[in-house]
């Protein structure tokens, strides 16, 4: 009886964690700090840019790349940069990228205006990119 209660408590805690993770995963949000990703990556500012951090063996990165391609194609005039986080670890660290995929939205001045951890939600990414295009 007690063991069943313990097991139920663990299940409840795990499912709560799962719900929290699901609600958070892929959300496109304002960055905690305004960073300048392009300067760190050695690119000039210019068109609105999506920077995707990928890693080796990252299945979700391929899904994210599909969303980026779709959104960039929809809007037009968008630059998409893909960065291997394992190769550019110091850049990932400087930008506070902790997981792959992570997608950054960068405006014309080269400043980060939004980011998403996980496969970004299409509608939210499109809205953020439209904001960065202005």
């Amino acid at each position: 009886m007690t063991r069943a209660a313990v097991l139920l408590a663990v299940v409840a805690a795990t499912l709560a964690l799962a719900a929290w993770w699901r609600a958070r995963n892929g959300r496109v949000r304002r960055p905690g700090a305004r960073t300048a990703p392009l300067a760190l990556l050695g690119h000039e500012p210019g068109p609105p840019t999506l920077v995707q951090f990928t890693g080796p063996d990252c299945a979700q990165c391929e899904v994210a790349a599909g969303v980026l391609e779709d959104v960039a194609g929809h809007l037009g005039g968008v630059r998409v940069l893909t960065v291997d986080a394992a190769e550019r670890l110091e850049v990932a660290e400087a930008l506070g990228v902790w997981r792959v995929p992570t997608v950054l939205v960068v405006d014309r001045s080269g400043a980060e205006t939004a980011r998403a951890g996980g496969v970004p939600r299409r509608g939210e990414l499109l809205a953020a990119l439209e904001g960065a295009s202005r």
Partner: protein
Amino acid sequence: VSAAGSPAGQVAGRLPQVDVRGPRFAAAVTALVIAVAFLLRAPWLVAVQALVFTVGAAAGLRAAPYGVLFRLVRDLAKLGPPRRTEPEAPPRFSQFMGAVMLAAALVAFAAGQATVAWVLALLAFAAALLNATTGFCVGCELFLLGQRLRRRPA
């Protein structure tokens, strides 16, 4: 864990791929096995699961017992070919982490520390349940962190 020889099983020039449903299925079975072990106070069942993790980590997901079971269920239930595949390495790394955790649990059982052992087993249970319900893969999320720690001088 897609069948060898299926077109999705191996993309030319790329790392081994598995059916995305395979690891989710395996995680669900894993959670069930550990839950039953806990309810029945059966350390031997924890040992069975530890062995399953070890085979998956050492021989790959295609040879892993729950991978074989998944293919059987897939064929019996006519689930059809995979919608998507994913690289094998991250879920295989998770099998390794599971093996380490349950090996530690078995050491605790042997040392008479049953409570410690069950806490370790329930942590593995929680990780498996999280994976089965959300696709969240602890091994995948920890990959970058691992790279970071490896590169950083002590």
